[in-house]
């Protein structure tokens, strides 16, 4: 053996993505599940796939699914990375409320909209950083650390709005929630852009791999010389940022900040989206696009039940049934079963 010095070519070319043929993408349980849910929606409501062009933007149930699913999809982008580190962030719903409250109070007090947006995003970053500090420096378990802000955050939001629902008519904030770009609703554009950016950043740098390593074995990560603390700080801060973006969208959509209800329970939907997307709560391998897909599956079900005329009470039961099916499809058990089927290689 000869031990040469390592000849490095620092990333002039980005790492190639893992080879992922189209066929394997289409046969993923998430994609099948989404197709199935959409198909059922179509059966219940034949006009489901009809998309029309009106006043310079797209309309239709499908667009509605994308639009309504965007806030959870954005939360899921941040949540994916947190869960990949074997953590969880329960505070994102409350952070949405804080961000909405900050923006609404700022514009109603006469500050310019851009400053209000920056302040709201800044508030999200600070909240995320707070979570990160609790998790890394104080070594509190993530579920407890973020529970603090989940409870306190809504109180903070109420303090900011002084207990009222603060309505506004600022066109910029309203545009974020209800506007459109190239025919697509702004929330969809924002969610899609954020998904692309986040995916590019984690996969073209080493962040993705290092986050996965920390999530799989934090102790081994330490022994291998990874700075887990800095990675965790970044990940929680980013989750806070995503929550703030989501909060802005929800506030813009209803033209007001409702500290009590904005983002209520959405952290659970976000966690669910991530899990449906195939990222294990045990940490490790993660996929941001799949988590976004998971958010869309959840929203497609919500929308389907609403438009089908079933009473909304069915929503939760149907949702849990579909989720159980998806999780079973993803389980190692079914992977073994499928592999044994004759004629189905791999």
């Amino acid at each position: 053996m000869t031990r040469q010095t390592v000849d490095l070519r620092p990333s002039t070319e980005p790492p190639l993505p893992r080879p992922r043929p189209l066929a394997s993408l289409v046969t993923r349980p998430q994609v099948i599940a989404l197709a199935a849910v959409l198909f059922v929606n179509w059966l219940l409501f034949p006009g489901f796939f009809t998309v029309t062009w009106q006043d310079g933007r797209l309309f239709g149930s499908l667009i509605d699914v994308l639009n309504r699913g965007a806030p959870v999809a954005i939360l899921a982008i941040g949540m994916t990375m947190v869960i990949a580190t074997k953590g969880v962030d329960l505070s994102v719903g409350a952070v949405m409320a804080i961000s909405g409250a900050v923006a609404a109070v700022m514009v109603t007090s006469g500050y310019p909209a851009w400053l209000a947006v920056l302040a709201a995003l800044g508030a999200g970053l600070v909240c995320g950083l707070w979570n990160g500090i609790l998790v890394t420096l104080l070594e509190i378990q993530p579920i407890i650390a973020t529970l603090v802000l989940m409870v306190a955050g809504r109180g903070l939001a109420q303090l900011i709005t002084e207990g009222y629902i603060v309505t506004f008519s600022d066109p910029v904030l309203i545009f974020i929630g209800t506007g459109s770009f190239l025919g697509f609703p702004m929330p969809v554009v924002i969610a899609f852009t954020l998904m692309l950016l986040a995916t590019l950043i984690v996969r073209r740098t080493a962040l993705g791999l290092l986050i996965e390593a920390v999530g799989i074995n934090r102790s081994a990560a330490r022994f291998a010389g990874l700075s887990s603390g800095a990675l965790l700080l970044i990940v929680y801060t980013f989750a806070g940022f995503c929550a703030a973006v989501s909060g802005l969208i929800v506030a813009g959509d209803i033209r007001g900040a409702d500290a009590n209800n904005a983002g209520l329970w959405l952290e659970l939907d976000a966690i669910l989206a991530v899990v449906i997307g195939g990222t294990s709560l045990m940490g490790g391998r993660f996929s941001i696009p799949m988590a976004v897909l998971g958010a869309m599956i959840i929203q497609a079900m919500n929308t389907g039940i609403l438009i089908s005329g079933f009473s909304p009470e069915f929503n939760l039961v149907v949702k849990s049934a579909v989720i159980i099916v998806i999780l079973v499809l993803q389980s190692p058990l079914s992977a073994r079963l499928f592999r044994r089927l004759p004629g189905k290689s791999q």
Partner: protein
Amino acid sequence: MTDAAARPVLEARGIVKVFGQHRALDNVDFAANAGEVHALLGENGAGKSTLIKILTGAYHPDAGELLLDGQPIHLRDPLHGQGYGIGTVYQEVNLLPNRSVSENLFLGRQPTRFGLVDRRRIDAQARDLLSRYGLDIDVRAELSEYSVAVQQIVAIARAVELSGKVLVLDEPTASLDRNEVQRLFEVVRGLKAKGLAIIFITHFLDQVFDLADRVTILRNGRKVATQRLDTLNTTDVVRMMLGKDVAFEHHPTALTGSTRGQVRVAFKGLNRKGLAPFDLAVHEGEVVGVAGLLGSGRTEVARLMFGVDGAEGGEILVDGRPVTIRNPAQAVAAGFGFCPEDRKLDGIFGDLSVRENIIIALQAKLGWFRALNREDQVELAGRYAEALDIRAANHDMPVKLLSGGNQQKVILARWLAIDPTFLILDEPTRGIDVGAHAEIVRTINRLREEGLALFVISSELDEVVAYSNRIVVMRDREMVAELAGPDIASDAIVQAIAGTPQEVRP
């Protein structure tokens, strides 16, 4: 007590226990007599804890039988064993710290009156019981208010009350100070006088000689010997524990002793609470082996060097320049690598691929934004996998699917990929099959020849001798001897470990 009067209370015959491919116990006989303290000794992985678990019913033997007072018994679980009179006290007291002493003593069998717990009677009985152990304490106070030694005695009292024939003490003194140990020993001697058979597990040899009558030594799942301790000295015991009494194969370069390059890494007065300050210089192309029993501070030294535990004093020089190492990331930046003892816990990333496991340390060293592209990764992984002969179907498979030996080589490859100046290996051959074992030893020799500075900890004496230029011997968390060149011989090492006075070199 004379041997003639000895009567085995608990006896194990021809015990075999297999875990997967690994024979944890291979045809082991063991007998604990009434009225004796029987010490059970062996290095990590020798099979001590497996044997204890079989004796107490936690494991079921794959072959062999257990006899209690000459009658065969089949233990379903530890509770069943307790019913037969076999009680255990573990290193960590497994009682309820937030309940009173008396409740702990009588938990599950409280004396009741009209269906209610009779507190006054419990307390009176508890006081009475503990006074027999020379303990006069407020039994109504919470257990956690007392020292670990008192808690241990309470645990022993409970175990003896519940069982009363055989008492297994599994490293009971690990967290006690000298006085507490003596107090515990008095209690144990009292029980011995009452005719209990006491099985005593520890890795403090002086305590074995202090307390025990006989000793059984296990190594690699086999019984080496059972002997009366008054016929033995420490050196004999160490030799039996570490094996081979022995034709050591000695490495030629170590004999010449003069092939050392310049000093790569120097540690000066490095120390930490519970570890005496040490000076050590490791040269280019040199393997410094570390010998010593478990608990002698071997791993602690390695952790200190690599910044896993922060040093409280002393300095580290790499190529003559001082470096700061307060965490492993700084150690990696200084060109250190560390293959930890517990591969699964601290080494591999089970779900990551072989390739990713190999490049991860280099990637961490390069930072987040200088990502190795896929071709570089494939090339690096391929080069080191070939150099170390890592056998994997492909390098994209999760590393957890590889065998222990191949996983160890993956971790070794990970460090070679950062082009290290100094490599620390803690028990690199533990839990690895024989073939891979020899290969790892060959690899260590080869790395030395290529000019790497290595610090290798191993319990296997013949192995340390086979690749070390120098051997540092540790005892009681202190480097007590250094052997080099022709001094590297089995006897010298064994005697240094045992602390036989005439043999210790300063």
